[in-house]
């Protein structure tokens, strides 16, 4: 790209300084090379401005909205929770359960007959009185209320969207 092209485009786009603008105007008036380039670029510029957009298919918006139907509201708590975290928590519990089961099965004495096997298993004595005190029950109720509010919120949002 030569200097004439650069000067003319800057002049047409209006991106040059007032001094450069005056200089370009003078050159367009006096220099035939500038004059020819100016006419040529002006035509191209006008053609580019008249250029049409490409049209997507008729069902474009419908397809996009169909894909977004099940999406949570952007920025809502649900949309911010990474699915991988949920899967990670799930994997942690499954792993814990598997390990406990493994330890339990490993510690069993398999030489005994099946009838006596289970009769030998002694469940640990759990003191329910100490677990189910008022503090734990309050926490349990609180978690229930939070869960209920979350489900209620999701229900009302769905109703709002379907309207």
């Amino acid at each position, binding site marked *: *790209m030569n200097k004439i092209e650069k000067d003319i*485009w800057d002049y047409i786009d209006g991106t040059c300084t007032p001094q450069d603008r005056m200089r370009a105007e003078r050159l367009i008036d006096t220099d035939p090379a500038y004059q020819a380039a100016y006419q040529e670029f002006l035509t*191209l510029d006008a053609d580019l401005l008249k250029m*049409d*957009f490409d049209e997507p298919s008729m069902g*474009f918006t419908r397809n996009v909205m169909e894909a*977004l139907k099940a*999406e949570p509201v952007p920025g809502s708590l649900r*949309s911010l929770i990474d699915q991988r975290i949920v899967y990670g928590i799930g994997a942690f519990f499954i792993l814990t359960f598997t390990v406990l089961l493994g330890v339990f099965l490993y510690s069993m004495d398999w030489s005994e007959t099946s009838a006596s096997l289970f009769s030998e298993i002694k469940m640990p004595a759990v003191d329910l009185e100490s677990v189910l005190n008022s503090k734990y029950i309050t926490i349990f109720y609180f978690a229930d209320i939070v869960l209920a509010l979350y489900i209620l919120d999701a229900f009302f949002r769905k109703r709002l969207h379907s309207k």
Partner: protein
Amino acid sequence: MQHKPSDIELIGEVLGGSQSAYAELVRRHQRFIFTLAMRFTRSREDAEEVAQDCFIKAYRSLHTFKQTSKFSTWLYSIVYTTAMTFLRKKRLETQSIDDEESYIQLENHVSEFKADQVELKSRSVYLNKAIDQLLPDDAAIITLFYKGEQSLEEIGAALGMEPNTVKVKLHRARHRLKEKLERLLQHEVKELI
């Protein structure tokens, strides 16, 4: 007269839970986004996929839109990354410079458009053909500047470039477009003769 909500108002409604407001945003910008996607993919099917993907991604991260730039500028940055990922996945090779050179060469190079000699086809047809032959980046920058009503500063913000760099890129893109257009018109002139 019914008030036509601005993009920012519609975005507010979407963040408040209205999906129909987002449908309006999609309708408003789909032609621009689809045209940009076409510039990168050069196939209607692929462009449709990229454009849809772009609107889905935009919806998911709408809460991150800072509203310091136009919504269309923000959308463009998503189209660009989506199209690049798509092309990488498809391993679609863009037309190389060698391919461009193999395009019909004529012995006598004329520097002016011969629009008056080509009356059978409109200039816009040739212009679209010439744009299709450009490299995707060149085609996109021209589309952004002329059809996206984006200033050099806005294009620079979307592309992560200085406005001056965008200006140089735009000049070069138009220069290459002019060359392509001249070649196409010369080819047509030769056919007519």
